[in-house]
């Protein structure tokens, strides 16, 4: 088996219907609906602990329960399983593999032959071509997260779920990496969980605010221009004030 897909996969939409999740006898959300449009970025904002990450893990099938198997539907009617990639706040690079082998991790874990050329292309695109043989602990936080992005892209899945992937970085690295991710994940269906309104407004085709317990989703905010929007875009700045106000009101 050789993994040689080069063209981006056909985008699929995703709808979550009546999702329910309880955690330590607390109902985090019940009857939650979320629509991820095909080939678009959907951003999920909300105070910490509201259940954003849990919703993302539920879609990934990592919540350990089967009760939500009926709630997630793909626009093409097929199963989501095997068509979703995940990028977390921590890079989770394996310290015993060099950068290139970390990027090729997916094929290693599926016992497939990795496409090294494609991995090198992705490392070049993320600016890591020179350190492809380096071990992760010799890299800076920003470089490590870029390697994690390259690893996510290497999976070449139509749906990408990201849980605050840039939040541990300094402002400049974060902005650069946001642009890179927007460029490289173009035409994928992306769900980005973040607590940074600016990040959501720069990257999201639509933005939801998740608040309350059990949590509910606010109506989608859809900024005019297409992402990635510049940090000083007037629309971004205008919505940022609005979002910050909403988040402040929701905070306990």
């Amino acid at each position: 088996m050789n993994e040689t897909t080069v063209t981006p996969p056909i985008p699929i939409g995703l709808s979550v219907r009546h999702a329910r999740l309880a955690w330590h006898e607390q109902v985090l959300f019940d009857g939650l609906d979320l629509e991820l449009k095909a080939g678009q970025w959907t951003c999920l904002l909300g105070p910490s602990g509201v259940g954003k990450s849990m919703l993302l893990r539920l879609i990934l099938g990592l919540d350990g329960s089967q009760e939500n198997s009926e709630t997630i539907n793909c626009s093409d009617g097929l199963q989501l399983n095997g068509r979703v990639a995940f990028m977390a706040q921590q890079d989770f690079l394996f310290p015993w593999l060099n950068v290139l082998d970390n990027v090729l991790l997916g094929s290693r874990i599926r016992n497939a032959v990795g496409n090294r050329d494609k991995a090198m292309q992705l490392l070049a695109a993320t600016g890591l071509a020179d350190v492809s043989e380096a071990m992760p602990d010799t890299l800076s936080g920003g470089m490590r997260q870029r390697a994690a992005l390259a690893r996510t892209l290497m999976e070449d899945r139509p749906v990408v779920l990201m849980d605050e992937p840039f939040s541990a970085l300094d402002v400049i690295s974060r902005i650069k990496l946001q642009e890179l991710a927007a460029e490289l994940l173009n035409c994928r269906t992306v769900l980005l969980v973040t607590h940074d309104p600016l990040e959501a407004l720069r990257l999201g085709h639509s933005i939801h605010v998740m608040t309350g317990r059990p949590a509910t989703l606010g109506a989608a905010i859809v900024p005019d221009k297409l992402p990635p929007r510049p940090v000083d875009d007037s629309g971004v700045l205008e919505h940022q004030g609005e979002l910050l106000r909403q988040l402040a009101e929701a905070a306990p």
Partner: protein
Amino acid sequence: MKLLRPAIILIGLLAIWQVVVSLSGAPPYILPGPWAVAQAWSQRPELFLHHGTITMAEILLGLIFGLGLGVTSALIMAYFRPARQWLMPVLVVSQAVPVFALAPVLVLWVGYGMASKVVMATLIIYFPVTAAFHDGLRRTEPGWLELARTMNGSRWAILRHVRIPAALPALGSGLRVATAVAPIGAIVGEWVGSSSGLGYLMLHANARMQIDVMFAALATLSLLAVTLYFSVDSAVRHAIKWQPDSHSNEP
């Protein structure tokens, strides 16, 4: 400095030994000085080399078997969850019964020769290796496991590519402890019944009041044990170079 420090420690210990001998006025048949022991060694080096080789072979074979058995048990317990409930009691029992108490039985069963000592060393090594590796296999970073699951890895693939490599530092710690205790198994076995090995030589010399020979055998054993420990330690460090603290240059 790297070689100088152990040399200084060694010379310091020898000096203290000599001072104790001189100040206490202990007769040579109770506590011979370092010089007398060195002389005893140099008079018959082939004697100590011969018995040392046998003891070392017992320890090394014990390490190989103990490591193999321990790694296998830990993997079985990690992969087949029900196996854990069956193997754990065996593991605990293997430690609850002291090796010293088993030694006469093992000599009776396995014989007077090398085999009983190898079994003894294996038994003593088995537990630290199994316990450490099993702990390491159970404590894999959850983020790594979840990542591997989203990549559609099978349980076996996740064990092989994530849990085993992640548990190697723990296995390394277990192996270090095992190496430090391994000589106990071999020596106890030799004391209980044997016709060769450093433990036998010590008993034999003791019975004939050749205390300097006894101490020379003890010194040979210490040298072997220390050499073995540092060899294993450096091999472990080399094998898990990626582990941050194994190549830190902190003083």
